């Protein structure tokens, strides 16, 4: 246990834990804060900042770029979203993509609609975009989409490449790492789409071995993709979103069955008002 972090270089260690990202943000927050409170105590400020990062309540009211910056920030945001709006799920209300975006914007003013739409596509299997979704469905699809955004994007590229390869020239070779074509994520709405599961799995597995962002555990991918001979991309995403193993791999939400329980005492709405992240001090929510 204690050996692993010593076998890498200092830079690698700092990069792995995104230390520089946090320190940079901390200093720019400090400078911003200083504008209004010239007598700020830097050590105290930094200590508060890292305490709130450690507790995971640092992403509230921050800009999207920051929320997305590290895996820890993403999980913290997913948790805040869950804590703040589980009442929606309890009351059984169904909302559409636009309405979910409005909720997200209450926590993060510039939360993009695009990511919400991607999430909706997972829940609704890529069609009928204006349909209503239950909170639980949306939450788990959102967790998948938000936490593994880069992975899903690249996986969808692999998927289209396999599709066009099997459709077009017979022996086109799919090399996932080279397939980084710029542009919009491929639209998969046309045609009866599905690819051979084994082929897709092999390509995704190769991707996982070298991928620099978070990716779902390979065992889970194998389990999902090996259960049927052919798979469609959104079928694959749907299965991932519903998989309990993904939830525990991300490790921030309780198991699906308990998602609406009130067991945890710090879950009430008041949790949104617990020690405000220092970073939010100079930023009104509007």
């Amino acid at each position: 246990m204690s050996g692993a972090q010593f076998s890498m270089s200092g830079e690698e260690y700092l990069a792995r834990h995104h230390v520089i990202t946090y320190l940079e943000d901390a200093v720019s927050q400090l400078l911003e804060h200083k504008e209004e409170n010239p007598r700020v105590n830097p050590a105290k400020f930094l200590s508060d900042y890292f305490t709130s990062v450690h507790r995971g309540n640092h992403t509230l009211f921050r800009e999207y770029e920051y929320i997305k910056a590290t895996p820890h920030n993403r999980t913290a945001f997913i948790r805040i979203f869950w804590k703040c709006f589980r009442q929606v799920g309890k009351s059984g209300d169904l909302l559409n993509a636009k309405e979910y975006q409005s909720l997200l914007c209450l926590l993060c003013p510039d939360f993009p609609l695009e990511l919400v739409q991607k999430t909706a596509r997972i829940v609704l299997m890529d069609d009928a975009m204006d349909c209503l979704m239950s909170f639980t469905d949306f939450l788990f699809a959102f967790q998948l989409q938000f936490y593994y955004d880069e992975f899903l994007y690249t996986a969808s590229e692999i998927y289209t490449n396999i599709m066009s390869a099997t459709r077009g020239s017979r022996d086109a070779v799919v090399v996932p790492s080279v397939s980084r074509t710029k542009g919009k994520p491929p639209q998969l709405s046309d045609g009866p789409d599905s690819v051979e599961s084994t082929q897709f799995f092999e390509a995704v597995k190769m991707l996982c071995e070298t991928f620099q962002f978070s990716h779902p555990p390979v065992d889970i991918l194998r389990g999902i993709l090996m259960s049927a001979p052919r798979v469609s991309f959104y079928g694959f995403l749907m299965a991932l979103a519903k998989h309990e193993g993904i939830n525990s791999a991300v490790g921030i939400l309780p198991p699906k069955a308990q998602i609406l329980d009130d067991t945890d005492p710090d879950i009430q709405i008041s949790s949104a008002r617990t020690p405000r992240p220092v970073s939010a001090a100079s930023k009104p929510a509007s």
Partner: protein
Amino acid sequence: MAEKRKPASADEKMPESNRDFLEKSAVRSLLRGAISKLIENRPEDPIAFLAEYFDSADNKPGSNKVAKAHQELLLTHHSRPAFESNMMLAYQILSAPKNAKSKAGLKGDLFTELLTKILREVPGEVSEVLLKKLLCYENEVIPYDIFHSGVMTCFIFLDFYAEADGLFTVLDTSRKKEVDKELCDVVLNQLNAAMTATKDDPKSILEGASKLRPDALAIALDNAFDSVVYDESMARDEFVMTAVIMFIAKVKPLR
């Protein structure tokens, strides 16, 4: 690399005041210190580490020397090279003069307090035996080598205690919270035999290690199984206590 590159926009707006502010408030040196501490100690949760670090930087010095020294010692495991410099720092913290009039130096009372703090997770009756061997008189001045060996012994003792506890869990296959006495005796004897390593004879260290190898232990246990009489058993406390006493017997008393 320690000083932060601020976002370009902030730089343009008020290049002087931001830079001045960071300079004046010593944020630069604070960050530089934090990063070098991080790289030196490589804690598993650097974020919590930083929160702690800035927090103690915020506290006025002299608030609680023992707590600070203890924190310093806990930064990294005692098998890491960085532990040595942490130990040095802890000694410096403790021996800093209380006020301008008093003299620098570490007295026995603070030393006792520190060792007790290190051993706080171990049950009282266990740590008491060890402390009896290590402690100095209240007004004695503690030189660095005594400090070093005392602290080191305590940390190794903590590891040993955890190992002995784990060993019992392994032996307790039936989860009855007690293990046959014969089996315990065999393991403890093996453990005792392994602890005969001496400085003069480097070979003894290897021999000691080989006595604790899984196969050596298995053979000993196997032999014992033939003669087991299933009437006496040993509880966890007793087992751990026996192991601990063996360890403490190897600690040389200070006087």
